[in-house]
Structure formats: C-alpha cells, structure tokens
C-alpha cells in the first residue's frame, strides 16, 4: 500500500476493533498495524492531533496484543512504549501538557515492564525536559522519579545528568534549600559509584548555594558534615570551601570574589558558577554579629 489515506486506515482499524454483532473479538493485531500506519501518515501530513490519537490507539493495541498473546509479550510492551513516546512528543508539540506527562509516565511504565530501566528513566527525563518551562514542579517530580528508577537498578552514574538538570530547575525556581538537598543526594549517588570528583563538586556546589542564601550557619554545618568524608576532606574543593569561609569570616569582599574566580569553582556547573559570581550576598558584618550573638548565648548556657 503506497500512501493510502490515513483517515481511511483509521476508519478501517476502528471497524476492526469495535465490537459488534459480527465481531466478537477485536482483531488487535491488524488494527494495531493499521493504526501505526495511519499515525505515520498523519505525522507526515503534520496533522498532529490525529496522529497523536492514532499513536495512542496503536499503543493501546500493542498492549492488547501483549495481554492476548503471550509470545509477543517481550516485544509488545516495548512497541507500546515506543508508540506512547511518539504520542507524547506530539502532545508536546500540541501543547497538551498534562497529556505529555501522562504519556511519558505510561511509556516509562511500559519500559519497566520490559525490564529496561534506562529507557524508562530516559522517557521520564524527556518528559521532564519538555515540561521544564511550563510546569516546573511536574518536571522536578519526573526528574526525581527518573533518578529513583536508575538508582534502583544500580546505575547511578547515568543519573548525574538528571541531578544536574533537576538542580538547575530548582535554582531557576529559586528553591535553594531544595537545590542544596538535591545536590547532597547527588553526592550520595556519586559516592556509591566512586566518582570522587563529581562528589566533591556536588558538595562544593551545595556549600555555595547555602552561602548564596546567606545562610552561613547552614553552610558551615554542611561543610563540617561533608568533611567527615575522607575523599572530600583531602580534595581541592574542600580547600576552596575553607578559603571561602575564612574570607567570609574576615569580611573581605575582595577575597571572596577572588576565591569565586578560582579554578575549583570554575569547573562546576554553569548555574552554580553564576551564583558564585554573585557572592557575597548581603552584609558580611551581619554574619559576624549573628555569630557573636550565638557565642554569648552559649556562654550563658555553660554558666
């Protein structure tokens, strides 16, 4: 069949699947192939709406096939998932954002049924990047789920990109505490796969974010916690962090700016570099006053 009219194909396929008196069982195999062809035809014609529908139906057909015929079970969720992904991509072009997230989630589940974790998380990642600008919270949720899938499968290394993307979304949303927490999760993942450099970079980024939030205490605590880890303690990044802290304690703005230009920070993610360049935020003298107040309280407690 050369390029038959997709509409005709759709009609035919619908006929095959609709249960009626003459038809007791829906012929999903044929219907699915017809749906696929129709969908391709629609896509060629740039009729996204119809194409999307066709893909949906094709995917459903694949699922049905898998549930009927056990032999195809290995392949069909895969095809179903693939069709779902295509449908989701088209939905993105159409701008049906909730459909996008639904489709990608469905595709990811199907991939997981196949037992393939990587494509599952990839599907979620694609969904998240599609939704980044529009529905950031949803995007973050998708990123987190994708990371979880990979970690369950023991492939944390693949998750680094996801962590990076999620952190940048957090920073864009100005949810810095969440960003820092996520970075610490990244550190854990890096630790599991012995990626020392990434781990130290993640910790340094977390410290910078805390300093950007002007939360010196939190930053100090973070630094102390991370210093418990031997790999971080003896790294360039921790030295840079300690230099930064001493500059803060001295209240020396020039020194802070100089440390921010130094090499360990320039090797971090560009989002973090931008934050570091903006340091110091707020008044340094306030920090010292706060510290002094705290010290007074401590003395009182002791006596």
């Amino acid at each position: 069949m050369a390029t038959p009219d997709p509409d005709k194909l759709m009609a035919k396929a619908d006929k095959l699947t609709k249960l009626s008196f003459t038809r007791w069982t829906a012929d999903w195999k044929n219907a699915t192939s017809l749906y696929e062809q129709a969908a391709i035809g629609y896509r060629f014609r740039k009729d996204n709406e119809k194409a999307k529908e066709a893909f949906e139906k094709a995917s459903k057909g694949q699922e049905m096939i898998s549930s009927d015929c056990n032999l195809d079970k290995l392949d069909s969720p895969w095809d179903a998932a693939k069709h779902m992904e295509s449908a989701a991509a088209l939905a993105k072009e159409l701008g049906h954002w909730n459909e996008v997230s639904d489709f990608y989630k469905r595709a990811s589940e199907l991939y997981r049924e196949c037992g393939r974790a990587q494509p599952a998380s990839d599907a979620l990642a694609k969904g998240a990047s599609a939704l980044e600008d529009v529905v950031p919270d949803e995007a973050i949720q998708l990123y987190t789920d994708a990371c979880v899938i990979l970690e369950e499968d023991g492939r944390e290394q693949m998750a680094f990109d996801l962590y990076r993307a999620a952190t940048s979304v957090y920073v864009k949303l100005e949810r810095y505490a969440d960003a820092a927490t996520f970075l610490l999760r990244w550190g854990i993942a890096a630790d599991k796969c012995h990626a020392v450099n990434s781990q130290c970079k993640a910790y340094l980024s977390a410290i910078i974010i805390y300093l950007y939030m002007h939360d010196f205490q939190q930053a100090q605590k973070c630094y102390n916690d991370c210093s418990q880890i031997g790999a971080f303690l003896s790294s360039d990044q921790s030295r840079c962090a300690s230099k930064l802290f001493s500059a803060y304690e001295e209240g020396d703005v020039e020194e802070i700016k100089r440390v921010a230009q130094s090499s360990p920070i320039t090797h971090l993610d560009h989002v973090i570099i931008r934050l570091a360049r903006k340091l110091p935020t707020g008044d340094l003298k306030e920090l010292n006053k706060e510290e002094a107040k705290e010290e007074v309280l401590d003395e009182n407690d002791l006596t």
Partner: protein
Amino acid sequence: GLLFLFHSPPPPRESHLHCSEERGDREEELKTISKMSVIDILTRVDAICKKYDKYDVDKLNASNVSGDDAFARLYASIESDIDSAIQKAERACQEKNRAAAVALNAEIRRTKARLSEEIPKLQRLALKKVKGLSKEELAIRNDLVLALPDRIQSIPDGSTNGAKQTGSWTSASHMEIRFDSTSDLVNADGMFESEYFQQTEESSQFRQEYEMRKMKQDQGLDIISEGLDTLKNMAHDMNEELDRQVPLMDEIDSKVDKATSDLKNTNVRLKDTVNQLRSSRNFCIDIILLCIILGIAAYLYNVLKK
C-alpha cells in the same frame, strides 16, 4: 788627617784599660771615624748595630721564637697573621672581580675574629713572669698586647665605612662573633646593607633585572598552574565518563555476541535448506518433467494443427 791620627793614638790606649768597655769603644770609634774610609765606616756601623741589637725588641722576639717563651711564640704568630691579613686587604682593594674581593674580605674578617679571640690568652701570658726577662720588658709586653686589638681592627676588610661610624660602640663587641653576611646578598627587603657593600650602578641594574625576570617567571608559572588545573578537571571528568561507559560496553558486547551466534545459526540452517533445495536429484526430476510437459505440448500442438 794624618796629623790627627798621629796625635790621637797614645791617650785612648791608656784609657782603654781603665774605662768601661762601652765608653771606651765609643771614644775609640769617635776618634777613629776621622781616619776611616767608606768601607771602614760601613763595617763600623754594622758593629755598632750589632752591639745595640739587644735594645731592639723585635729582633729580640724573633731570636726567642724557638725558645720556651709561649708569649713570644703566640705574639709572633699573631703578628704574622696580621701581616698576611694586611696583605690580603691590599689585594682586595685592588681586586676588580667583586666576587673575589668579597671572598677576600670575608677571609680577612674571619682572621680578625680569630685573632681577637686570642688576645685575652696573650694578655694572660704577658703577665706571667718568665726567667731572663726584666721588669721593663714585661711592661713592654703588656703594652704590646694592649696595642694589638687596635692593630687588628684597623686591618681594612671592606667595611671601613661602618667601622668608622660605629667605632665607638663596636669596640666593645669586637670580641663577639661577627656573622659574615656577604654570602647572603639578598636581604628580606631586598636592600643591600651599606655596611658591607657599596652599590655600583652595575649591581643595582643587575638587581632590577633579576626582580623583573623573577616576576615574569611567576606570571608564567601562574598561567601554567591554571592550565594544569583545567587539565586535571577534564581528566577527572573523562575518567568518570569512561567508568560510566564500561558497563554499557559490556552490555553491548554481550548483546552483539548473542546476535552473532543467532546469525550463525540462521546461516547454517539456511545453507542446509538451500542445499536441500538445490540437490541434483531435484534438478533431474525437474528437467525430466519439463521435457515431458514440452513433449505433451508439442504433441497437442501437432494434433490441433491438423
């Protein structure tokens, strides 16, 4: 002249026996000088010098070197050291090569310090009573010892400017150890100590050049260190990336192995099938049947044509 000679002889001969030897000699010499020629005068002068040699302390000391007098020995060695130091100082003044001059000055300084240390010892020896030495000579020795420190200090060692200025208060510290800082040309603040060096144009220029070059080297090294930092970071990232790809490669490896084995199986089966199809028996049967069909067709054609 001859008349003098004739008149003089008789009275001196008589007094010779009665007066002290010295006085007699002197009178005799005075009277005989007029009668003498140049050679005789010279001989006479030598004789006189020999007689009065015992009043020459220097020669006395020199003659006593091999003796038991420890003071004299030490004094003699110190004297010789001072002389050699003075000679070195003169050489250093004339020396064009600054490094050699510096080395000579350093040696002189060391010698001076050593000699200054030996002076107390000498003084103690001077006060000891030695047999065969009169009270006058003892006093003389003491004076000599006291004069030595000044003599030692006056040896020029390239620091005469400072010595002049600080002569008053450094006299007390002359006995102390003086550190030789000529080997340490660079002070913390990069300034030459004017005590030890006079800056020539050459040396200050050299110094400037040295500073400039050092600065340039520092800049270059900074750039290199930055580059190395970047390289290190990139190398670490590459390392992690490769670690990430190792399990993927293993997966690809196993999958491709499976695919190749499948292909091999399929190929073998296909080969069997094709062989079966192409077997010669089938061909012969095909040809015979074809011939039969053609024969039948020809027969039919003939029949129909009729």
